[in-house]
């Protein structure tokens, strides 16, 4: 019998955190209480035991760029970060714009078996922004979140049709918001630092004009709309206002946008290059506040692996993107320090709901699937190397507070910290 007890942890159940043991059998939680026994035991003294994290935004690079990462190495990194499910963005090669491609990714994830891998579907064929993708097929293959991530759907008419269509299906349109007319030849946030370095800047408005337009289109079409990697105070305000008006809008923020600002670019180190770029300290504060108050629903890593040699070039020539799966919870804990309920709402419950994943993001009680993370919020550690095939992290060598101690997926232990 596959049996496991998580002992003496602070268990996050429907009634809130409480000291208890958790007995897991055949992939499900069967009991939460005192003095539970099984052959296999993990001591969780002083640690949070809650629903496994769900990441709405990862790049697993398979198919097409397996030297950066593949579904297996990405799944391993996800498990090491406490994740039990991840949504794989569609900017693979080929792009995930048809049913068989979405099925391949899902099946490959199942074969690896460490986390549930759910593909996002492209909104347009080849993510070219010109023609709708095979949306029906994608839906039938299990896709619930549609995004051309990496690109913005620029054509407002096309996006309107995509929203109408995806709304009919019951899916969510997620947008990487970046107006290309305002980002040409630009590599970092537009402001004092870009001016000093002589680099072309990406103004905050490049994100905000797209989000403002999309919110109007979402209201017109009634679709569920999700803002990916919110980076500016202005976007936070747009989302806040839309939510107040009752629109079905959700938003995510990355750990790096919650923690770091554009002054990091002073060193011109390509480990800090990502889109959207690191913004001003005021933006960071606004995004963090929005995560606390729920305006931003979810933390999403935008885990974007690149090979070391690809990043070991001058800043402007480096590919955009940083990895994030293995440090996500620690970075949130270090820089935002939410209470445990909020931490798990933003990293597990809300993203599971947005991704349409019923088997994840559920407070622990008898009967729920055993997708669980054991997280020690006070443990200090310094990332020196990664499980991911790539190491392009701005948190390498930084001391963080909060560590994933164990991950359980479908009742199996998929990660234990040594």
């Amino acid at each position, binding site marked *: 019998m596959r049996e496991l007890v998580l002992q003496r942890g602070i268990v996050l159940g429907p009634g809130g955190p409480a000291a208890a043991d958790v007995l897991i059998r055949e992939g499900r939680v069967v009991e939460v209480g005192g003095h539970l026994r099984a052959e296999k035991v993990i001591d969780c003294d002083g640690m949070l035991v809650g629903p496994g994290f769900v990441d709405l935004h990862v790049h697993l690079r398979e198919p097409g760029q397996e030297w950066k990462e593949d579904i297996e190495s990405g799944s391993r990194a996800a498990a090491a970060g406490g994740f039990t499910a991840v949504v794989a963005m569609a900017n693979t090669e080929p792009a995930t714009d048809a049913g068989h491609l979405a099925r391949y990714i899902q099946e490959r994830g199942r074969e690896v078996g460490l986390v549930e891998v759910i593909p996002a579907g492209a909104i347009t064929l080849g993510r070219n922004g010109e023609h709708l993708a095979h949306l029906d097929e994608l839906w039938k293959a299990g896709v619930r979140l549609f995004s051309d991530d990496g690109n913005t759907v620029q054509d407002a008419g096309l996006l309107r049709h995509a929203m109408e269509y995806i709304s009919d299906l019951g899916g969510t349109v997620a947008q990487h918001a970046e107006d290309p007319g305002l980002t040409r030849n630009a590599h970092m946030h537009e402001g004092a630092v870009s001016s000093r*370095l002589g680099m072309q800047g990406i103004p905050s408005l490049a994100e905000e004009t797209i989000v403002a337009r999309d919110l109007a289109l979402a209201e017109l079409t009634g679709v569920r709309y999700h803002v990916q990697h919110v980076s500016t105070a202005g976007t936070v305000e747009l989302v806040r206002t839309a939510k107040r008006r009752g629109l079905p809008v959700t938003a995510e923020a990355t750990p790096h946008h919650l923690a770091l600002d554009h002054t990091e670019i002073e060193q011109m180190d390509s480990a800090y290059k990502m889109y959207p770029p690191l913004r001003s300290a005021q933006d960071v504060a606004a995004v963090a506040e929005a995560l606390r108050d729920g305006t931003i629903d979810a933390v999403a890593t935008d885990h974007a692996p690149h090979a070391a040699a690809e990043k070991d070039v001058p800043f402007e020539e480096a590919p955009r993107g940083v990895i994030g799966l293995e440090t996500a919870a620690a970075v949130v804990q270090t820089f935002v320090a939410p209470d445990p309920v909020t931490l798990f709402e933003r990293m597990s419950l809300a993203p599971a709901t947005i991704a349409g994943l019923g088997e994840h993001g559920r407070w622990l009680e008898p009967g729920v699937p055993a997708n669980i993370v054991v997280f020690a919020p006070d443990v200090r550690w310094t990332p020196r190397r990664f499980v991911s095939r790539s190491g392009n992290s701005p948190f390498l060598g930084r001391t963080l507070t909060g560590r994933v101690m164990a991950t359980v997926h479908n009742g199996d232990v998929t990660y234990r910290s040594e």
Partner: protein
Amino acid sequence: MKHFLTTDTLSREELDGLLDLSDEFVEVLSRPIPKVPALRGRTVAMLFFEPSTRTRMSFERAAKALSADTMSFSPGTSSLSKGESLKDTALTIKAMGAEALVVRHKATGAPWRIADWTGLPVLNGGDGAHQHPTQALLDALTIRRHFGTLGGLRIAIVGDIRHSRVARSDISAFSTLGAEVTLVGPSTLLPVDLTGWPVVTAEGIDEVLDRDVVYLLRIQTERGGASVLPSLPEYVSRFGMTRERFARMPDHAVVMHPGPMNRGVEIAPEVADHERSLVESQVANGIAVRMAVLFRLLGGEVADA
């Protein structure tokens, strides 16, 4: 001094020391045999990933005047176009015996990366729109030789400051040496955020004709294209140093330009060739300051204060 990458971090003493040394090399260059054996047997490599005949010739001439050997790299004919990385190229050139590298690259920060990779002394010959510190040194030398000092001078820099590494380097050096710097240009060509810059700004060139030095930058029509300037004639009418404007400047005032000049755009031909144009001295002084920097990085401590 391990590298010469930026003027941002140089103190007034360091700048004055380099200018004093440059003065000595100006004297050397005026001799019948303009050459000293200071760096005999040493090898300097020129890594110009962005073409610039002028700057490169100036550096080569400076190295040869110090009796150093030079090696050259240009990307057009190199393996870089065959996919070799910048890092591999830099390490290859180190392995061939280069002891100092002069680097010009279109990406901001490239000389810093090359310094990290190779551990060799690196001279920034211009990176992106970021820094061009030997240009700042030659501009400061030219002004100091003309006026005796930069302290208390009022200098206006006119034109495309946003995309100018010359302006960024000059602003730091001039203000550290005690000059007051005014920037003049359309909003599309000024840096977006001037927080922390030791400068004031003015609307058009007519406001700064009373300055001691008016420094005219090259308008790079290839930058930003039609979206930064409606037309060159409009630029001339608001920011060009025309003959009429030059006539309104005080008798002691001078004009400067980093070259190559668009005659008739940022500077009228008659002004460029006028005796109160320091353009030719700038070019000549460029060799002396590059000698000073090479000598400092490779030659040792002789002139260190």
